């Protein structure tokens, strides 16, 4: 098969040429030099450029992003993780894609809502500018529409829970038959995408039920049944605060309709520091209680876990392990380091100078 042979030959040639290029740049890889010149072209390090910044409400902003090479298109409802350098430290946060899927220009948008004490959201709200680069991860999450599309749909959202739903509406509204959106926000002005939602409702494309919690109080599932009588006959997607979702899940389960409810939880990224905590080593399965002041290294070794260590005083960096989730305190200066699963921080912590300040899970 001559065709295959040629392609094999060219592939060999290309690999060979690449190896020579790698030799030119050893000990780093050619991409490290190209990065200095053209940061978006690197396919192994996914980045995006901010093309536009549009305010939504007083504390929400939409970023239009142009992803670099290596990007994969998203499904409506999915989220992406953005890595943003805040005061020199790269922090990752997950944001729902709010634009319609399959845009021609390959761009997409996320809408960032400022959360209280939110380091990243606050930073983006204040500092995001056209031209800025952010780090990016491919889309993830299974909070997506089912196919075939349901004939009757209900969306129950609160606060920034509207963001993934907006992505779904913008992508697939024509395919969805009868759509009801029940959305809670503190005030009418605080409704993210308020104008667009009301416009859709005015056109009769959705039935919108807005609830303003400062005036009307929080929405209870029982009240929801009054607003939407055919509740359990609808395929339902809900996104919002944890206790709202808990209530809904209970209500749907009681009605025997649990499988018709899809929920997406935005987990709070604010971890509260305490003293000591349980540390789980995910790979070995070891679970140890690290007392306040004791180091993770010592506690794990005492429990029989094989640990890498060197200086045992924080200067050699041989003892670092990735923390998937949790909060640790530096025993020398009290500094806290946190990681959350959704954000995928996987921050490397030095076990010899870290004590647990809450439950932690280590990738070891």
């Amino acid at each position, binding site marked *: 098969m001559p065709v295959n042979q040629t392609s094999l030959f060219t592939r060999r040639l290309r690999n060979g040429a690449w190896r020579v290029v790698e030799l030119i740049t050893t000990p780093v890889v050619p991409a490290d030099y190209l990065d200095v010149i053209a940061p978006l072209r690197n396919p192994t390090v996914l980045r995006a450029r901010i093309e536009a910044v549009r305010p939504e409400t007083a504390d929400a902003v939409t970023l239009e992003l142009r992803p670099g090479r290596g990007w994969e298109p998203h499904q409506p409802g999915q989220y992406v993780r953005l890595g943003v350098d805040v005061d020199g430290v790269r922090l990752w946060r997950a944001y729902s894609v709010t634009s319609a899927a399959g845009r021609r220009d390959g761009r997409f948008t996320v809408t960032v809502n400022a959360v209280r004490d939110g380091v990243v959201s606050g930073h983006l709200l204040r500092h995001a500018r056209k031209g800025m680069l952010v780090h990016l991860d491919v889309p993830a999450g299974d909070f997506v529409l089912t196919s075939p599309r349901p004939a009757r749909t209900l969306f129950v959202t609160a606060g920034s829970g509207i963001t993934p739903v907006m992505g779904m509406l913008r992508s697939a509204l024509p395919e969805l038959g009868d759509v009801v959106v029940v959305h809670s926000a503190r005030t009418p002005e605080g409704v993210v995408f308020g104008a667009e939602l009301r416009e859709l409702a005015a056109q009769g494309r959705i039935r919108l039920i807005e609830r303003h919690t400062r005036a009307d109080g929080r929405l209870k599932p029982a009240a929801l049944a009054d607003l939407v009588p055919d509740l359990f006959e609808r395929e339902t997607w809900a996104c919002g605060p944890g206790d709202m979702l808990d209530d809904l899940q209970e209500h749907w389960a009681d009605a025997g309709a649990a499988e018709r409810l899809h929920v997406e939880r935005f987990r709070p990224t604010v971890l509260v520091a305490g003293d000591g905590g349980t540390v789980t080593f995910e790979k070995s399965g070891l679970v140890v209680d690290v007392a306040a002041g004791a180091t993770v290294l010592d506690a794990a070794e005492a429990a029989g876990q094989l640990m890498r260590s060197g200086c045992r005083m924080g200067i050699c*960096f041989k003892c670092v392990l990735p923390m998937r989730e949790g909060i640790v305190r530096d025993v020398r200066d009290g500094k806290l380091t946190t990681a959350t699963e959704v954000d995928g921080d996987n921050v490397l912590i030095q076990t010899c100078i870290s004590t647990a300040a809450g439950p932690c899970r280590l990738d070891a």
Partner: protein
Amino acid sequence: MTTLQRKEVNPIAHLSPEDIEQLGRELDAIRDEILAVRGEQDARHIRRMIAVQRRLELGSRAVLLFSVFPPAWVLGTIGLSISKILENMEIGHNILHGQYDFMRDPKIHSTTWEWDSASPAEQWKHSHNELHHKYTNVVGRDNDLGYGIMRVDEQQRWAPAHLGQPLYNFVNACFFEYGIAAYDLELGRNLRTKKRRNNPEFRARARQVLHKIRRQVTRDYVVHPALALPVGFAVGNPLGALFGTMAANFVANLARNLWTHSVIMCGHFPNGVETFERTSITGETRGEWYLRQMLGSANISGSKLMHIMTGNLSHQIEHHLFPDLPASRYAEVAPKVRALFERYQLNYVTGPLVFQVASAWAKVFRLALPNRKPAREIDHSIPPRHPAEVAA
């Protein structure tokens, strides 16, 4: 801290254990001050250094494509030398110390960085960060003292082989990166017996080193000279282009090696720097560890450019106190550290590069010969301290 007891004047006799712990707390406070402001500025610094170095390297290598022309050869060689020095000192050394791990950038991280040195980063981190920085100047534990080939202290027994140590030191300086690799491999010790030679772990590490050296040698002495050939052919002097580029790379490597060796010699060898006995560090407290770093290191004074070209190892004292803080901050903390030295009446060893290098070399020569006076005996009138006492 018992080696000090051998001295006629014990430089820390005036310090009580409480003083030493207080000193430690004051140094911790200086550390905290830097931690509080560490961030954006430091991230920008290292990114800029990396960008400058990479541009400089690419530029110099491009110029060396024309190495048949003498001005291009000179320019390219100077640029490449500077780029290699920056790469090793201000970038590699400091990133591998974890100074920029706080950025959480997986590329600029002590666990992923690889540098242009014969010693693979992983092995170097073990011998340098772990052994040298923990056991600074402890004779027998810190092999940086003389790299196992030299006599560095009057207390060490003299042997005729030491007569050659100025020569070894010079050869080591010229091929410093290979010396470091051999030293990280503990080559002397590991080649001695058959059992050690055949140890699979040692063999694996040796293979890594050889692999790395092979790639770098191929790059510097085969690939880049070959890239200069077209221009060589064009002007009818291919051999000139080939050997010219080889020579340029050789000179750049040599310059980098001599420079790093000199800077590093200044860190722990000059007059006034103390060494410590193995037993002196049992049960060492944080305060005592700090004190040992203070007495065991020496600075180089000079301009800002000097500090950058040494990777801020000109602030060796500050580096040894805070090895994991961004090196570009050392200049900022130096006055505070120096004030502490004065307040606690300790000797802050510093001086211009030429003086410090000369002082270190003088020591190499002096110790090549047997001592004029016999080495002093340990003063047993000062009781050794018990670890329990120290911990209390």
